[in-house]
């Protein structure tokens, strides 16, 4: 059985505070200074009824793309998918912005570490969660230092995704 598309087994326990938290940003350009100014002019946190979280899946593996897209869908999070770090940078340069980015580490063209650094240099303040199957301490440290807000080992599950959202102060309304 399920509610709002979320299976009962994945529901956040009763009594936990639920609210939807999201920023709307009017960012159009790549310039970090311009982005800072536009963010200051952006809308305030919208009402609970109107807010919707958005996410970007950055992964070169088609199976993972499909799974992560569906996991986010299941939690009511609108999401886009790109195939590597360069595409993640490009989509932000085109004016898109997201509340959450799920960033794979090993990708061709521009890997997760490089892409995270580049996005932070651009002034992107989205929460970025690194996700990878290769998680030795050295790799994790390097990835975190690139600018991650959180890190999770693959494979992703609903409960791991909920943990990421909780640690990054996103709450899913049930």
């Amino acid at each position, binding site marked *: 059985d399920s509610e709002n598309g979320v299976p009962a087994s994945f529901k956040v326990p009763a009594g936990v505070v639920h609210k939807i938290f999201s920023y709307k940003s009017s960012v159009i350009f790549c310039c970090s200074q311009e982005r800072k100014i536009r963010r200051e002019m952006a809308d305030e946190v919208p009402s609970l009824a109107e807010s919707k979280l958005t996410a970007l899946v950055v992964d070169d593996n088609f199976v993972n793309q499909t*799974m992560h897209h569906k996991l986010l869908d299941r939690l009511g999070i609108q999401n886009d998918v790109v195939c590597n770090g360069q595409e993640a940078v490009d989509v932000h340069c085109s004016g898109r912005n997201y509340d959450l980015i799920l960033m794979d580490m090993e990708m061709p063209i521009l890997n997760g570490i490089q892409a995270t650094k580049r996005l932070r240099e651009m002034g992107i303040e989205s929460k970025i969660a690194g996700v990878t199957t290769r998680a030795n301490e050295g790799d994790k440290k390097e990835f975190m230092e690139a600018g991650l807000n959180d890190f999770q080992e693959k494979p992703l599950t609903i409960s791991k995704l909920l943990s990421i959202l909780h640690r990054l102060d996103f709450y899913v309304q049930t």
Partner: protein
Amino acid sequence: MLGLGVDRLQADINRLLTSLFHQGVLDEQFLQLQQLQDETSPTFVYDVINIYFDESEKLLRSLRLLLMDREFSDYKKIGLHLNQLVGSSSSIGARRVRNVCVAFRSASELNNRPGCLRGLEVVEHEYNYLKNMMHELFQLEQQRLLAAGVRYPM
């Protein structure tokens, strides 16, 4: 009679899945995959498994071509392909395939060509076993849905 047919087929599906879990072919991540199937994506498991098969076979073909080349020395490329296989196998809960890919990757990291060749054979064997089992599962599921009077796009 129809009900008995559906029940028997469901029992066969449960038996097959139990066996696959018991053998370590599948792990709990496969249950996660099943949980994501819903009315908005009623063939999600089938679709994802088929993406996995398509991608895995391309990677396995590429691995074989690389290793069959007498001049082969690009162990880094082998590693990249295996990272993909490890990742996607983990995501669908294909535990044994994942584990043998990890072992193969260790051989590639040591630039051990005989080890890589053995690793490839083991991965191909485990992959083919998984594929056969998944086909059997989908056939049983198809039969069960037909018996229950539901159309299942294949």
